[in-house]
């Protein structure tokens, strides 16, 4: 006996995607064909499984590997900067390439391609962000902050702050203080 079938491709594809995600317990929505919005809470392990199951059906996650790797790289950098216990004595290039299991050259090229900035600049940006939040939220002096962030001197931190933001740490502190004052007395 021979039977004939016709296919609704969109429906088949979406059904495969839905069933796969469901079986892995990943929360998702499908905004449009070929696009899946995955719950942020999904672990990197389940994303890996998802990749494997999708591959079985001939579904490839486009670019995702790259973007995931860049995200892991960013997370590692943020952790390195903000978490004192993670502060390391090796050079950050060695640290990052060991932690992520790729050569630094590869990571560096990939990072620039996806984020439009270099790893070095991103590390500086994060350190300056940390400095800003310490200035805004704590009473630590700049000397203490420089020490906390492993800068060789206050002058070095000060210069890097000025080069990155265009303003001095003192001016930053003054502006944040005045903003608070304005927020408390909105009539001015």
């Amino acid at each position: 006996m021979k039977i004939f079938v016709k296919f609704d491709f969109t429906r088949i594809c979406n059904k495969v995607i839905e069933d796969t995600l469901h079986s892995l317990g990943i929360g998702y929505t499908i905004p449009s064909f070929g696009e899946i919005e995955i719950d942020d809470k999904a672990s990197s392990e389940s994303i890996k499984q998802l990749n494997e199951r999708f591959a079985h059906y001939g579904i490839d996650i486009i670019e995702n590997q790259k973007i995931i790797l860049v995200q892991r790289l960013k997370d590692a950098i943020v952790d390195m900067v903000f978490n004192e216990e993670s502060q390391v004595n090796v050079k950050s290039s060695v640290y990052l390439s060991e932690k992520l299991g790729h050569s630094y050259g590869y990571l560096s090229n990939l990072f620039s391609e996806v984020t439009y900035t270099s790893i070095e600049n991103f590390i500086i940006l994060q350190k300056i962000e940390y400095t800003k939040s310490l200035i805004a939220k704590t009473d630590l002096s700049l000397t203490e902050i420089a020490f906390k962030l492993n800068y060789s001197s206050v002058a070095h931190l000060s210069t890097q702050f000025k080069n990155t933001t265009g303003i001095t740490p003192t001016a930053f502190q003054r502006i944040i203080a005045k903003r608070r004052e304005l927020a408390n007395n909105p009539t001015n």
Partner: protein
Amino acid sequence: MNKDVTYVVLADDDEDDRLFFTEAFDELKITTQVETYEDGVALMKALNCEDASIPNILFLDLNMPKKSGLECLKEIKKSKRFQDMAVAIYSTSASEEDIENTFVNGANIYIKKPSDFNTLKRILSDVVTINWQYHTSGLNRDNFLLRL
């Protein structure tokens, strides 16, 4: 709005400045969509339109007819709708008082208009790149201050 495109809006009464600005963005690596308005009233009318997309970065000239950049800035900062939008002041003035005053009133970026096109391109590229990091890495916008 596509997440990969940076949506940029400029309000400036000088036609040449608007033209240079748009051309500079055309040559950047990051994909942008640029829209311009010629005074503060036209700008605020467009922004306040309910179904309008919120720009990623708004560039404001300080001296404009009808409504100045500072007035627009104050209005914008009062509204919750624009809390994720970076505001850049784009002005010929470089008085320290003006600069600090705009920062205190909530501006994120202060750009002194450069005199040549290549400098403008470099500056705008810096602004969009840093804003991109804030956008994609969840940095605290309250602490986003940049002077170029």
